[in-house]
């Protein structure tokens, strides 16, 4: 095992990530055996549908966890972004791209608020995100009068184009011969690469991870830690805003008062991928693999005729086991 670990490529990618990929493959194999209809291009498309918005959420929360913080408000905030901007879209004649920017802007507002309260007012991140979760839910609901909000369909002449961000329907020889191209995956990968670059190659990312590891030492190095801590939440806010666009791109409608469960899944994906809850260690690649595992799990569990409940149980168990193994192996090392 140790020799395997020392192969340059394995070292470069990280052993843990390779194991996670293996788990992903094993799961795929297992579901293929358990369900006759699982090996199917459309299954992948529909699993990916779920992976897009979850992916952006998880990427966002990865930055926050990197600082040693936590954000429990991402799910409801994502819904709030989608609801408010969707309402504006349907009530005004603004083009859809403006509303997409508004969605991201609302995400940034919440990110700024959370970040400001955590970095400057020193409120524990857990509590402030609890509060902003309530506020996001309530605000979205008040804004629309507790109404469901619908984004335009793909057929919509003027505004439907934004759905091509999520998936592009390539029509072949006959109108029924449709191939779906997962454009959302491309977007997710591009954003993930950008995130990876920010986290690993820029000053911002460096300081975010360093302050997650030892905030006081970074502060005494003359670094504006408050700014960078807040920045992590703002980045998270941007990604939550983007997530909201991909959510409505896949599911069209959003209801106020919802979104809690996506917090848990996004955090679970990030942690599964090797991001440490204590801060300082974060992996974008790992987060993406974690998201894919959850997405595959949810599609697979549906495919074998079970309810989402099983997915929740299994996801919870996987995270507990993955993190325990990580902790035990690190304890052995020291």
């Amino acid at each position: 095992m140790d020799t395997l670990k020392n192969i340059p490529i394995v070292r470069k990618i990280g052993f843990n990530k390779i194991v996670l990929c293996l788990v992903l493959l094993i799961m795929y194999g297992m579901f293929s055996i358990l369900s006759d209809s699982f090996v199917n291009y459309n299954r992948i498309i529909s699993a990916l549908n779920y992976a897009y918005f979850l992916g952006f959420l998880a990427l966002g929360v990865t930055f926050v966890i990197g600082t040693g913080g936590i954000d429990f408000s991402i799910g409801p905030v994502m819904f709030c972004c989608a609801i408010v901007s969707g309402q504006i879209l349907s009530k005004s004649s603004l083009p859809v791209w403006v509303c997409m920017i508004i969605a991201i802007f609302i995400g940034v507002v919440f990110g700024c608020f959370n970040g400001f309260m955590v970095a400057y007012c020193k409120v524990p991140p857990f509590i402030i995100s609890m509060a902003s979760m309530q506020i996001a839910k309530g605000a979205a609901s008040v804004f629309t009068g507790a109404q469901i909000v619908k984004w335009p369909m793909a057929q919509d002449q003027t505004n439907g184009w934004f759905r091509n961000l999520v998936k592009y329907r390539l029509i072949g020889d006959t109108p029924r011969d449709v191939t779906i191209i997962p454009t959302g995956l491309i977007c997710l990968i591009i954003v993930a690469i950008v995130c990876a670059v920010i986290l690993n190659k820029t000053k911002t990312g460096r300081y975010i991870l360093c302050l997650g590891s030892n905030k006081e030492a970074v502060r005494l190095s003359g670094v504006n830690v408050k700014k960078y801590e807040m920045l992590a939440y703002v980045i998270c806010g941007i990604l939550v805003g983007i997530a909201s666009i991909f959510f409505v791109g896949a599911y069209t409608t959003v209801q106020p008062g919802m979104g809690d469960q996506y917090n848990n899944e996004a955090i679970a994906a990030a942690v599964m991928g090797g991001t440490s809850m204590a801060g300082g260690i974060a992996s974008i690649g790992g987060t993406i693999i974690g998201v894919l595992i959850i997405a595959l799990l949810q599609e697979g569990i549906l495919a074998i005729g079970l309810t989402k409940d099983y997915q929740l149980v299994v996801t919870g168990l996987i995270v507990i086991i993955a993190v325990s193994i990580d902790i035990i192996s690190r304890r052995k090392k020291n």
Partner: protein
Amino acid sequence: MNNNSIIKKIGMQKVITLGILLLLLIFFSLANPTFRKYTTFLSLMGYTYYIAFMAIGVTFPLLTGGVDLSVGTGLICYALAGGYLVVYKGWPVWLGLLIAVLFGVVIGLFNGFAVAVLDLPPFLATLCTCMITRGLGSICSNGTGVPWPNGSAEGAWFRNLFRLKVGGVSIPIGIIWVVLAVVIMSIVLNHTRTGRYVLSIGSNKEAAKLCGINVVRYQITAYVISGFFAGLAGIAFAASFATIQPGLGAGFELDAIGAAIIGGVSTAGGYGTVTGTILGVLIMSLLKTGLPYIDLQANWQQIIIGIVLIVAVMIDIIRSRRVSA
């Protein structure tokens, strides 16, 4: 300065909380005359019971410097499991109640094991059990809602545990259980080794270990207490609202944790009281019942509760900053 010492003894945070509580009461009573009715008080109590049990329980993990996010989905899960056995399998009600509490204890043990033995961050471990119990609840009941016996049905007696009908008047005797729980857990916290060690662990875990305190055991105990009370909360919830639907409960834990924090439990652990927690609970449930009476649409409640939470924490932070300066 006799006055000051009394305040000091009770704790400033509690005095403030009590003040806010009274202000809210006066405000709602003035704003809407129907709020002053006895029946409103009864329904206020209905919301208080389950939040109170949850919050009393979750105080203990919070005091160890941890947290238990699984109480909300947990209580629904336990009530579903117990109710399913009673309603669909014909088990006697008392056994169903027992199962609900036992289930809570088992999940509490699991949490404690994950936190104390596996050394997982409490956030993460209980986040996972939050997901797991949410799933398990539905699985236990095959995805159906469970209507606990009520009205004149056989087994509906258990609802009298919380609301006894004498003649035409309902008496909220659930208060007795809540008060009893507060008194017992206050004694446990302040006058027994369990409570002392829970506080010690929250204050300085390493030091506690070096004093020869079995840290693992008492950490697990804290989570078991939390699970046990989540089980009781499940029963209280079933008694107040009869029908339990799967998929609920996410977000309930925030009411409980928020109540504890408003009541002065330190999020870092080591400091807090059960009586403070119960004051926080009353504020939470008062907001929940009171706000609809002043003709606020339900969605405003969430915003207001969010703001109240922020204000409570800010007061705490400013206060502790002043103390340390």
